[in-house]
């Protein structure tokens, strides 16, 4: 997701029910941090709790799905709080007003916003708590707070006075938080900016990290849900006689999305689910297939759509062109496929409810829970566990709503677990898209015109409809404008519903638009008879951050230097989430198989909280981009998603891993996001390498040598 220029909070609050499972999210979030902790601890503010035993708990209000927020955000708090980061306990925050992501206007993890939103906020939170602890010590000693300072969990005062945070926390928590606090100069940082190891690693390598699927409540039952094979279909009739007679089965419950079997163990529930005999009304999409989807998208290309940019006179420049270039790029639906299948635990009672699991969008979860249970937000507890991958899938709350409905119906705590097949066939898929591009070159080979028209489906129109204005979905137009100096430009989008429900997937529309733009720039360079690196660089005089990473990647990759026979390089460039990145991919195509040998990444993301996590994200994004480039292709037949598991929806495996070299620009610019852009950029860089290798353009994903 992108940064929304105007905080969209009001829009979120007004958002109401729409197709595909979106629910009212217009809930005010309670400010409940003061009561949500043990009596032995004091909440100094919304982010910091200190125990009488000097234990320090820092709340993390973003979901940890691998991207390292549960390290990065507490690092910023601890930096200013003056505590030993290695001893800090990190806890995921409940829904609360204080925890809203200001960049997205809701309590939501996405859009590579966590560090950008928290960069100052988290340091201020730490500094505020520290200032209160110092003030509490000064009060206790009857001295001027200016004569005291904090270090390593202690406050030091005049004449060798010392007090631990633990002894001051309760008094500090009763003080009025200071309005303004001074932040450390970056040169004094102990933790921020350093390549520290993550605090969650130990739990994750010993099998001790709790994911949603690991939750267990006293008296909890297990559920497996039969959903219509055509998404959106409804139950007409169910014969559950056989299922009910199976061992361990306690309940068979009809809910909005299907029929759930509840049993003493999940395996029993799942076996019995498969014994249900359900008649479905498959609904309006029962005959939907992939050909029809792409016909709809192709028809969209001839609709007027919305204008994103109009500069100069494209038609005139096309008329005067020495050479014209034309191409259409096609992207399929993709599945998120986090390795932890969708699952959720709910305990709905008459006057309270507990929801626990892998959640990306706590505010939506709260809205859903109030709607289904009829309870008030104050009566609902929502706990976020570690997420076994999210990638945008856990922004939606369909699986949570199902667990809440089941628990409400049976009056007992229940854990719903989907199978992998359920997960792959009932995703909110990354939208398929078609992008038509036209360009003009003058006699010297310089581009004089560029036009782009993109036809795709809007996730935002389903999930947050008020954000779509005048036919423009801001999350469909990310990186749609090229940084290159081209005099005449026309850029537009057309929103088309295709029938299959869609969701935000890592890098969202950056992946669609960067693939089209950077593939097309390569095609223009080839038509101009120019080197694709030099061609791009010649158009970046006014874009120093773009030019800088492009040059760095080319230089480190040895651009222009000879390669072993049968290998070629491709280059691509983008900005996303305020991060500037270039990649050079080296590939071969032997025996009909694409092999990626080496990826050189140059990135300028401004200041970093943790370069170790930045590198993890770059590595992971390359592999994620490989999946989309080489394998990812969700197809439809008779309304059903054809891929069921990892045999037909393949993910890259260790033998395919290329050598990844990362070059990070030292920068004092404000931080950019790093969880997503690398994935988007990999695809055009590889496509361009394959063109250099084979002379054939890869205009359709996943790529094929055939």
């Amino acid at each position, binding site marked *: 997701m992108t940064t929304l220029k105007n905080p969209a909070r009001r829009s979120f609050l007004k958002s109401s029910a729409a197709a595909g499972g979106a629910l009212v999210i217009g809930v005010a979030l309670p400010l409940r941090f003061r009561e949500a902790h043990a009596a032995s601890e004091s909440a100094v503010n919304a982010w910091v709790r200190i125990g009488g035993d000097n234990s320090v708990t820092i709340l993390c209000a973003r979901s940890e799905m691998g991207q390292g927020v549960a390290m990065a955000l507490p690092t910023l708090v601890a930096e200013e709080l003056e505590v030993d980061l290695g001893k800090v306990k990190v806890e995921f925050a409940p829904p609360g007003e204080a925890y809203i992501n200001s960049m997205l206007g809701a309590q939501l993890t996405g859009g590579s916003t966590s560090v950008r939103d928290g960069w100052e906020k988290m340091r201020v939170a730490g500094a505020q708590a520290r200032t209160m602890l110092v003030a509490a010590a000064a009060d206790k000693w009857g001295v001027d707070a200016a004569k005291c300072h904090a270090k390593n969990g202690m406050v030091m005062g005049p004449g060798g006075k010392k007090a631990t945070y633990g002894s001051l926390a309760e008094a500090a928590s009763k003080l009025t938080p200071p309005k303004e606090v001074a932040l450390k100069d970056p040169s004094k940082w102990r933790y921020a900016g350093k390549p520290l190891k993550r605090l969650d690693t130990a739990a994750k390598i010993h*099998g001790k990290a709790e994911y949603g699927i690991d939750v267990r409540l006293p008296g909890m039952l297990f559920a497996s849900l039969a959903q219509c094979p055509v998404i959106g279909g409804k139950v007409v009739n169910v014969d559950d006689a056989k299922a009910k007679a199976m061992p361990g089965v306690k309940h068979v419950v009809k809910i909005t999305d299907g029929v759930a079997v509840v049993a003493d163990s999940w395996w029993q529930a799942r076996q019995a689910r498969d014994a249900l005999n359900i008649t479905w009304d498959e609904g309006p999409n029962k005959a939907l297939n992939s050909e029809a989807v792409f016909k709809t998208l192709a028809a969209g290309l001839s609709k007027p759509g919305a204008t994103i940019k109009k500069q100069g006179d494209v038609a005139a420049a096309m008329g005067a062109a020495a050479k014209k270039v034309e191409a259409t790029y096609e992207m399929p639906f993709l599945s998120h496929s986090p390795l932890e*299948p969708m699952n959720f635990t709910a305990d709905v009672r008459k006057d309270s409810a507990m929801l626990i699991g892998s959640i990306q969008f706590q505010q939506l979860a709260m809205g859903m829970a109030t709607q289904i249970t009829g309870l008030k937000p104050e009566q609902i507890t929502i706990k976020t566990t570690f997420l076994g991958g999210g990638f945008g899938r856990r922004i939606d709350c369909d699986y949570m709503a199902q667990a809440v409905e089941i628990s409400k119906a049976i009056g007992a705590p229940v854990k719903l677990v989907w199978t992998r097949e359920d997960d792959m066939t009932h995703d909110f898929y990354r939208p398929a898209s078609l992008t038509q591009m036209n360009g003009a070159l003058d006699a010297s080979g310089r581009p004089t015109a560029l036009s782009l028209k993109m036809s795709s489906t809007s996730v935002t129109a389903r999930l947050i409809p008020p954000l779509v204005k005048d036919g423009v979905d801001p999350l469909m137009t990310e990186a749609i404008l090229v940084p290159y100096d081209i005099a005449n430009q026309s850029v537009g989008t057309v929103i088309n519903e295709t029938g299959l429900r869609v969701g935000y997937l890592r890098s969202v529309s950056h992946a669609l638009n960067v693939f089209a733009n950077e593939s097309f720039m390569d095609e223009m360079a080839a038509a101009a008879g120019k080197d694709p690196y030099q061609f791009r660089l010649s158009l970046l005089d006014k874009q120093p951050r773009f030019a800088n990473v492009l040059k760095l990647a080319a230089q480190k990759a040895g651009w222009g230097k000879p390669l072993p026979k049968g290998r070629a390089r491709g280059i691509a460039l983008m900005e996303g989430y305020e991060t500037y990145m270039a990649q050079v991919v080296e590939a071969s195509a032997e025996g009909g198989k694409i092999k990626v040998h080496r990826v050189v990444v140059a990135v300028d993301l401004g200041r970093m909280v943790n370069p170790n996590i930045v590198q993890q994200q770059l590595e992971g994004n390359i592999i994620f981009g490989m999946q989309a480039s080489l394998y990812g292709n969700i197809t439809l037949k008779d309304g059903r998603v054809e891929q069921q*598991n990892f045999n037909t929806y393949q*993910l*890259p*495996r260790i033998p395919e*891993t290329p050598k990844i070299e990362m070059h990070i620009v030292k920068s004092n610019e404000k931080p950019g996001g790093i969880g997503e852009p690398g994935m988007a950029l990999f695809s055009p860089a590889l496509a361009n390498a394959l063109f250099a290798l084979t002379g054939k353009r890869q205009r359709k994903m996943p790529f094929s040598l055939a």
Partner: protein
Amino acid sequence: MASLNVNGKALEVNADPNTPLLWVLRDTLGMTGTKFGCGAQLCGACTVHLDGQPVRSCGTPLSAALGKKVTTIEGVGATPAGKKVQAAWAALDVPQCGYCQSGQIMSASALLASKPNPSDADIDAAMAGNICRCGTYPRIRAAIHKAAKGA
């Protein structure tokens, strides 16, 4: 009631002998470190050892585990290879979301127990059955080499 040896302890389990070992570990015994990923032996998230050999517990019925020594992520640190692997995983900060890492560590530990100094080709062969959606493969490979050198 059957007796299942898990991480050196004999545990009484009351479950249908056809139940996959994965669900006996997770639901019956409450040992949730072993993960469910695909249920079809395609992703390796559920990897455990039976008498030291890596198996996919989602496709191994309880009956096949009776009379054998089951080792899971909760206990693999007590084996020499498992200890080295976990130390290398920590030193290189391998996990991201972490969900597949139990299975990765079980496969890597079995590899090192049988081949103390594996080549890249050995690593490819032993680890190709373990998917990581976060893409931690570069660090997994580096960590196995590091563990082989004594971490």
